[in-house]
């Protein structure tokens, strides 16, 4: 089967999309602050059911991000957030990937302007791809974070973090959440559980070697019906540490030596009894999601055969309509145009190929609808 890699990038456009439709909303601005010209991009990236909040600021013409003050950088995940709260996955920094550089540990996610932020829709999933460099010297490597939301798993976000560098190695990955809410609550206890153990994180930190693939984060005494779940691959990590928890619960995953690509699935539970959710997740669903996670093809390839098949189907429909006396001349011309447009785009390795596919899909639906109308 002939497959063509279609490099899909962002195109400025004017399509009006509903809030629920996957899209990226960029709010870019430049302004002066304390005599320094600041460049800012506040992205709201809507996946299928999750939203990414990605705020970056830097001095104009510099690639290194400003992160010194709160509000200068966010990489948050709004996913299963309890109403009227800032709880759930951290809407400020749900993932941090630390590596050693310049005599300190740096969060790779918050180092540089992204080189690429791409949202792509496939029939079965939505893909968000973010690439950011690790050093001023581009040759030092890059971090690629790829998020998938599958139609089959609307309550899960699948994450791959690929730390590609010959100069640096990943040290620790933090996954940050506020099960239930982000506030400080005297009565509340923060807990984490695996199939093997439960940890009262309000009382003490915890450390363990991962065995089973699921972690559930929850609270006791307050917000008991809310929590967050992590599925990961235990083979990728040497140990997992939970620091003593205050408002947030931070899961620190320490990679095994030589491992530079990490896979997670993130989820949540809302208004469900923990005593029901937890055993089901730890004993059953975590395995299920783990198997799915391991089976994901993280590099889905657009398929030209699919385009040709779809175009042939449209042509067949038009032929049928023609035989029943419908004038389809204009539509035939349009189909020919889309075919040519697609072919040219593929030859140029132009992302417009994706747009042609979308046009074809629309035409397919329209022609079928028109064909059915002829029976009405």
């Amino acid at each position: 089967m002939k497959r063509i890699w279609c490099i899909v990038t962002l195109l400025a456009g004017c399509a009006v999309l509903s809030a629920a439709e996957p899209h990226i909303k960029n709010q870019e601005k430049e302004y002066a602050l304390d005599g320094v010209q600041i460049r800012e991009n506040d992205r709201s990236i809507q996946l299928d059911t999750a939203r990414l909040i990605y705020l970056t600021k830097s001095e104009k013409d510099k690639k290194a991000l400003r992160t010194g003050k709160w509000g200068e950088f966010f990489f948050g995940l709004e996913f299963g957030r309890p109403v009227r709260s800032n709880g759930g996955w951290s809407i400020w920094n749900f993932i941090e990937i630390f590596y050693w550089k310049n005599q300190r540990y740096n969060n790779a996610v918050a180092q540089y302007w992204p080189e690429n932020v791409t949202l792509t829709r496939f029939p079965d999933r939505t893909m968000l791809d973010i690439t950011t460099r690790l050093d001023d010297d581009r040759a030092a490597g890059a971090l690629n974070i790829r998020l998938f939301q599958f139609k089959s798993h609307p309550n899960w976000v699948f994450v791959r973090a690929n730390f590609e560098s010959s100069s640096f190695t990943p040290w620790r990955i933090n996954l940050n959440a506020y099960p239930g809410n982000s506030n400080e609550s005297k009565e509340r206890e923060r807990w984490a559980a695996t199939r093997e153990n439960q940890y009262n994180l309000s009382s003490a930190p915890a450390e363990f070697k991962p065995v089973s693939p699921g972690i559930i984060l929850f609270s006791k005494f307050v917000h008991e019906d809310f929590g967050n779940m992590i599925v990961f691959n235990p083979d990728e990590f040497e140990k997992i540490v939970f620091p003593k928890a205050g408002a947030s619960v931070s899961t620190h995953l320490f990679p095994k030596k030589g491992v530079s690509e990490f896979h997670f699935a993130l989820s949540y539970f809302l208004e469900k009894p923990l005593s029901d959710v937890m055993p089901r997740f730890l004993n059953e669903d975590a395995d299920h999601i783990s198997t799915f996670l391991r089976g994901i093809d993280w590099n889905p390839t657009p398929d030209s055969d699919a385009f040709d098949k779809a175009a042939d189907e449209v042509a067949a429909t038009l032929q049928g309509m023609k035989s029943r006396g419908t004038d389809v001349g204009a539509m035939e011309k349009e189909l020919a145009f889309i075919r040519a447009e697609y072919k040219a785009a593929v030859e140029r390795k132009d992302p417009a190929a994706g747009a042609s596919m979308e046009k074809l899909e629309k035409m397919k639906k329209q022609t079928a609808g028109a064909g059915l109308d002829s029976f009405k």
Partner: protein
Amino acid sequence: MCKKIIILLLLCGVIAPGAFARHDGAYLHDIKQEYQTPYLNWGGPLNGEKLNVLFIVPRQGAREVAELVQRMPMEYTPYITYNQHVAAVENMYDAAIAGTSVYEKKQELLEKLKKDYDLIVLGNFSLTALPDEAQYQILMKVVNGCGLLMVNPIRVARLPYRKVYENPVSNIDFIREFPARNLPGTRTAPEKIFNAWQMGKGRVGTIGYETRQSPGLSLTPYLPYSHSWQAEYESMMAFVARCAWWTAKGDAPAAYVGEELRSAPSVEYGSASFPVRVDDDAKATARIRNVDNRVLAEVEIRDGKLTLPALPAGSYYCDILLEKDGKNAAFGWYTFRVASPVGKLVLSAPEVVDDRQNFSGSLELEKSYPGPLTAVVELLDSPYNRIWFRNTVQLPAGERKLDWKIGGYHLPTLAGYVRIKLLAGPSEIAWAEQTVFFPDYRIGGYLQMGWDILPESTGALYAPQLVDRFGWNLGLSHPSAEGANARVTALLNQRFVPYLVRVGLKKSDTGSIEQYSWFFLPPALKDEPKKLGGDQNFYRPEVQKLWAEGVAHRIKNLPKYSPVIYNLGDENFFSAEGAYGPSDEQYFREFVKSKYGSIDALNREWRSAYKSFDEVPHLSLQAAREAGNFAAWFDHRQYSEKMYADLHRFLSAEIKKHDPRAKVGAEGSVPGDLEETIDGLEFWGPYSDPVEDEVLRSFGGDRIRMLWWGGYMSSHGGRNQYPLAILGDTLKGTVNGSAWYSTNVIDPSTGFAVDYSPAQYLKNYMPYLDKLRGGMADLLIDTPIKNSDILVYWSHPSASARLLDERCPNPNDSLNPLIRYFYQRGIGFEFVSGRTLDRLSQGKVLFLCGASALNEKETAAILDFVKKGGTVIADMNPAILNGYLRPQDANPLREIFGNIVFKDITAPKLLPVKVDARLGAQTVKFQASKGLTASESEFMKVKRYGKGTAVLLNFGLSAAENTADPSTPLAGFLDSLLRGAGFTPEYKVADSDRSTVVRIRSGNGFELIGALVPNDKVGTVLNVQLPGDRYIYECYQGLVGRANVLKMNFADSPYRLYALFPEKQTPPAVTLTAGQAKLGTAAMLDLSKLPAGRVYYVRVFDADKAEQFNRNQVVKSPVAGGAVPIPLAYNDMPGAWTVIVMDVATGLETELQLNVIQ
């Protein structure tokens, strides 16, 4: 001002197939003819032409396509939708199976629509639920000459396409080849059921039966299951076949019509004839069948006349088959009745007969018969129609009432039929029948349960596969109103396991406890729970009343239908954080009063000074812990756990009020305090947890223990290459039954394909599952695990204490690696707990893992154990709390472990561990880069006490196992510890993978050694040094040889089971007491010479050499009376039968011949 940029999304093409490592989906997408059910021959394809058909049917209705194709062979392409509403669903379960997503199903259909078809059948699925492209293509195919047949058990909704209905077709000839009215299950004339239109070159037909939806339907109407279901179904299949042919091809090559027969005439007893007009050039045959679907006669229709043979009174089908030029030219059927010369017969029989007792009834004749009659009283089993009892009673001339009795009968099923035939001389003139249920609560050894039951509409098609061939004869389901679905399963010989309630105690908004759902209440009480205001503490009488009402509502009629187990729920749960409601104040106080006995005792543990229990506050878990009042914390947890356990016990008692024979329990559930929870229950299934499963094995006794394993796509080992989960669990002894999720073909977890053939992955398991069913599992269940004098302490309070303070280690941290070690070395062990301290007298080595909380009795018993010569090995911080979880001021085990006191110690830390010590004469060495340890330097303390020894390791085994230095693996360390304790294994298992499970059992004169290795160890050999030369038999296989080393060769399988004997074994010394047996009697299989304590598998083959799966039996010696019967029904096949008896342990067989005569 911000600049807003909307990003255009790009829709890319499909991703490459195989993007996910998903399970093969063939079992959800294909319909094959591999699994055949009984059916009648309708003459083959009309005109010799096989139609080329695209069937679009839901998963649950797919079997009907196979049924149709059996009767009218055709080329066909199946397109299987998720259900009758949508082609596919997006969820995490279906997503694990290839080809099931919405997108994939759409592409599959569009691909299939590229082919040409004679006919497209939409069976119980609407055209408008298909994608627009597919709808359009289908309609265009019709315009171009393809037929489109839409079937619905109720009515086919009118399509929004006017042109489809422009040219109706009336007076369709083939309709007259069926009765004019009342097709089975329907109340409508066929002309109204089948409607048709011409569109372009093609035809559109609709079949709307005006019945109702029922799982399993796609082509036929809802037919309530009864003894006449098979005949009705056969008839409706023929009707559908003719509708399909006509829609595709038009009129058949020939036609017939019997106008009189069309009206379902009634004729007097004796021969009768009817005019049937047949096309001149066709040869017509009539086939007469009764309501059992048994063909009684075939006669040729000559000169336009059908002459019937003399038939007893009753209803009949008259099939008519035309042949022209040597090919099938038409087929159909009519019905008629033969009136009884004695009028209506009223047969009275009990609805239920318990314990196979003798029973009686009467038969009343509406009209007397002038001559003497002979009444033949028969008892048939359901659904097989085998006659197990027959007796004749004379009825004098003119007598109108007959009293009958049935006794001394064998009935192997859950239901049957009393049938009485009246004979005048040799001729049967009338008959009557009554259904009788025979509740059977006997539970054999190894049970096999499926999630879900046989569907009413197609259960008779599924039962031969599910119940007979596979033996999954227990089905779990919610009972329907009045137990109607249980009635159907009993008729199909499937044992119903009612999902009666589900216990789910969650914390309510008010801090109390509330049941998560009261789905099991009768409709009139649905609002009652709301009135409790979120305070649904089980101890409240009004709450108990509701639970009791729920049980009473759901259990109606069930005891009649052999509910072999009553299930109180799957994934039951409770919240220890709740139960702080208004009513809890009273009940909590009652609990602590009962627990402590006196306020002084409570004050001692709480370090309080209350004057009476009325003053005792119900502290929140948090407040209790923060106040350092661990006893109060534990009291609340125990109160919650007890409430959970008491609720289960209460429900069990309620059920037993309605059904005293009931076996009650729950499965896949949070245990709470396991020993407490299962007390009073006969059945329990925990989640798959290595420790908890072993605790249940050790304390559970003969309780039914099952874990759901098969079918799961990604968990429970449900889709491994081998059925490791059930092999492992039966080998370990943690289960005594198999539970498969699921048997409903709509569920992607199904073990069976949509056509009821086994899915490929289940086929791969069959060699293993068949052996387990055929005695291997029973051999494992009945042969006790070899006693190694090793005990492991189980302390539920300690398991709770680990939630309280880090100084209290998690018992599982050491128990998991310890149990793995025992498995690896084939060392048997039992648990001992505060409730079973007497077990200490049976052991020599005791492991104390995370036993931080022990009461006085326990510590005294442990000291006594050591004093008498035992060796106790503890990991960390034993007995720092007492049984109430109050920190001890002085450690009660200080004499053996030193005075480890809660307030003086810190939380264990992960530190390097190094042991270099001596235990007895044994040097013990161990080194690990990290172990969770309570000491920074002293990792093994040995102390002699009395005649025994105490060892304190001061570290947990889990992290130490993972980071052990390769020169000192944990298993080697534990070996040396046990050697130091004087334990020498009788069977020495060579070093193996740490996931290997070896279990050694001790039988009567033999030992059983089984092993299971992980997938990646298939192809390896594992040696076991035996204590001497043994005759080695591979169970189910035969003699391997004589040796002092057992070489377990996992060449082609991860599982091996051997039996070792000091002497050579011979095939089972069994005989048939007589070489021949008469139908209606039983051949007796003499087993009196067999050694006791063995398991035999008796297989029976009829004269056609067909294995009689539902007569095979697992027999355990000795058997009462020394013999087992092989009953023969009156209507069994006479001839040379074969009986094969296999000694499961040795695999040796004896084959016997049985001459069955009439």
